[in-house]
């Protein structure tokens, strides 16, 4: 595995399966009365968030704390960044305080890549979402959720997603989640279909390792998982689609459409959901929808990633079990 986690495309199949397997071990920790592991004791991780994101930051924070790391939260608002400090200076300031890893969320595509590759700092860099580029831990938690649901928590160990048919629907153009998922799911052997109006698909998509369709209804019966992406209402004003209602009619997932999916198929959403836009309440609240599970799985995946990047030489869970005896 590479030293940083910047893009889902950087992961090999074996890297990804190792992360999913490790996350499975981490998930078992979450079922214990005491959810904490000593693995990253004495390590300092900073959550460097230049963009507002409550759920991702909290998820990372929970993962870091369960691994006993010291956690610093840095949000750009009201900080020196809003006074014009550069990314480089901010990062160097934090590193001077002895940070071992930087979890970064940034509005500019490529900012984590720059942080990891410009010689500014030595710390491990984990991308928590950059612009419309990548969100690798989201893709990993999605794959983890799919493996658990479609294969099983135990049966899934050591397995990839070979032959699973995954449909991703919505604003692909502006979505780092879609990009990360296409890369990772392809690596794991899944067959991905992207569904969106042509305006919300990027020019140049033809080289991506996936199928593209403008028609949701014909894709649903052939899907093992359907992932709905958030569609911001403001896109309407930039003429990406005529009206919210038209978008919902053509690309929203409601009960009738869900009924066309195979019985075992699940509905996923990276959140936050816009109910009534890309997904109806009926679907969002159904048993087939994995939104809440995805959140729980996110903590396990982030624990696995941080463990493997920062403490990977020592066993994570087995050691703890010995200690417990």
């Amino acid at each position, binding site marked *: 595995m590479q030293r940083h986690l910047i893009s889902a495309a950087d992961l090999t199949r074996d890297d990804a399966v190792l992360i999913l397997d490790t996350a499975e071990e981490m998930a078992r920790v979450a079922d214990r009365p005491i959810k904490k592991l000593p693995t990253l004791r004495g390590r300092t991780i900073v959550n460097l968030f230049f963009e507002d994101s409550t759920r991702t930051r909290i998820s990372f924070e929970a993962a870091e704390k369960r691994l006993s790391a010291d956690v610093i939260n840095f949000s750009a608002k009201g900080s020196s960044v809003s006074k014009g400090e550069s990314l480089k200076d901010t990062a160097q300031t934090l590193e001077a305080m002895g940070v071992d890893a930087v979890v970064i969320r940034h509005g500019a595509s490529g900012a984590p890549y720059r942080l990891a590759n410009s010689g500014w700092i030595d710390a491990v860099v984990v991308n928590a979402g950059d612009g419309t580029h990548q969100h690798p831990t989201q893709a990993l938690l999605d794959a983890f959720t799919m493996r658990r649901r479609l294969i099983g928590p135990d049966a899934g160990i050591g397995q990839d997603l070979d032959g699973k048919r995954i449909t991703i629907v919505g604003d692909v153009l502006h979505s780092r989640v879609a990009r990360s998922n296409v890369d990772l799911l392809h690596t794991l052997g899944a067959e991905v279909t992207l569904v969106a109006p042509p305006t919300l698909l990027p020019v*140049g998509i033809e080289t991506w390792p996936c199928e593209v369709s403008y028609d949701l209804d014909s894709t649903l019966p052939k899907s093992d998982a359907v992932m709905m992406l958030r569609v911001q209402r403001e896109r309407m004003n930039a003429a990406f689609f005529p009206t919210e209602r038209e978008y919902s009619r053509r690309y929203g997932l409601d009960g009738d459409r869900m009924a066309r999916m195979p019985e075992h198929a699940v509905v996923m959403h990276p959140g936050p959901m816009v109910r009534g836009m890309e997904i109806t309440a009926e679907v969002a609240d159904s048993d087939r929808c994995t939104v809440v599970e995805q959140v729980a799985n996110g903590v396990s995946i982030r624990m696995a990633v941080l463990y493997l990047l920062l403490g990977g030489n020592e066993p994570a869970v087995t050691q703890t079990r010995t200690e417990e005896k």
Partner: protein
Amino acid sequence: MSKILIRGAKVLGGEPQDVLIDGGTIAEVGSGLSAEGAEVVEAEGKVLLPGLVDLHTHLREPGREDSETVLTGTRAAASGGYTTVFAMANTFPVADTAGVVEQVWRLGKEHGYCDVQPIGAVTVGLEGRKLAELGAMHESAAGVTVFSDDGKCVHDAVIMRRALEYVKAFGGVVAQHAQEPRLTEGAEMNEGVVSAELGLGGWPAVAEESIIARDVLLAEHVGSRVHICHLSTAGSVEIVRWAKSRGIAVTAEVTPHHLLLTDELVRTYNPVYKVNPPLRTERDVLALREALADGTIDIVATDHAPHPHEDKDCEWAAAAMGMVGLETALSVVQETMVDTGLLDWAGVADRMSFKPAQIGQAKGHGRPVSAGEPANLTLVDTAYRGSVDPAGFASRSRNTPYEGRELPGRVTHTWLRGKATLVDGKLT
């Protein structure tokens, strides 16, 4: 001024000849010329070109002296073999009045490294709404003949039409930065396969091509000539080729970086590759080279765009657009056009001196290397190969995309009206 004998230089890449400079003029060109009373420059194996002319330079003064000044920019120009640069109007304040263009012109004269011919803004403040006083700039001491809102497109069709018409009165030319503004909102790089993957805002080729198509038709309609800045796409080449075949008075330039680099480099997210118009694809690069060779594209212009280090040492979105180019232009042209067999040195002289001087009406520049002509000359060691070291630049800025890249050719001498501005690669 004393005599200088340049001995054994391949004039425009031809047979070795001696060139005698007396004062500011070329006195004699021939073989076995007497060196009596002359300082001798041994030029065996080197190529002698007319002093290069850059129709597209950003000198940044007034306003952004932290990135470049007229002094540092003209020193960089002399280092790169240039004897004239046309200074773009997007300074602070904007060069949209006679006062500003005269200031820039005078600074160039005072420093004496390279003639500086200011370009006037087409519209007040480059805002695209109201014509600047083009006539006053033309009649000023600076004698402006080229007008451009470069950095911004004159996007309003009526304003563009009027500008094209108006400058006919004094033989001026409008140089268009072709970029449809609505199609390039949030644009950060070429729109295509790489931008889709990197999640960077796309700058589609059609945003350039649609403006060029409109402007050649406008030029035809009102009987004016139009110049296209930094043409960057294969489609633009096709449009200009069509326009020329139709007899429309259009000229076009290409930058060295668009002849060499592609958008694949953006995968590094290193802002040193961030430029406007953006680096395009391999297919575009090859079309541009071919067009420069066959004359569809008339000239090479650097779009030398200095920026301070902090404006490039950051994330892609926050970075400034542009790259320095004066000191590497000839090497890149040798690499992409001469060493590939697309253009000989006479062709380089045409694209980098004769034609740009003609388009910009730079008096005394872009002249043949023959007796009686002004001694504006550049001597190039074409056998040289070396890697680019920005620490050695004369420019105040270091934002080159070629750092560490091995390129051929090195300008060893530059003469401006017989006065050496560069000797053995060192500025005088």
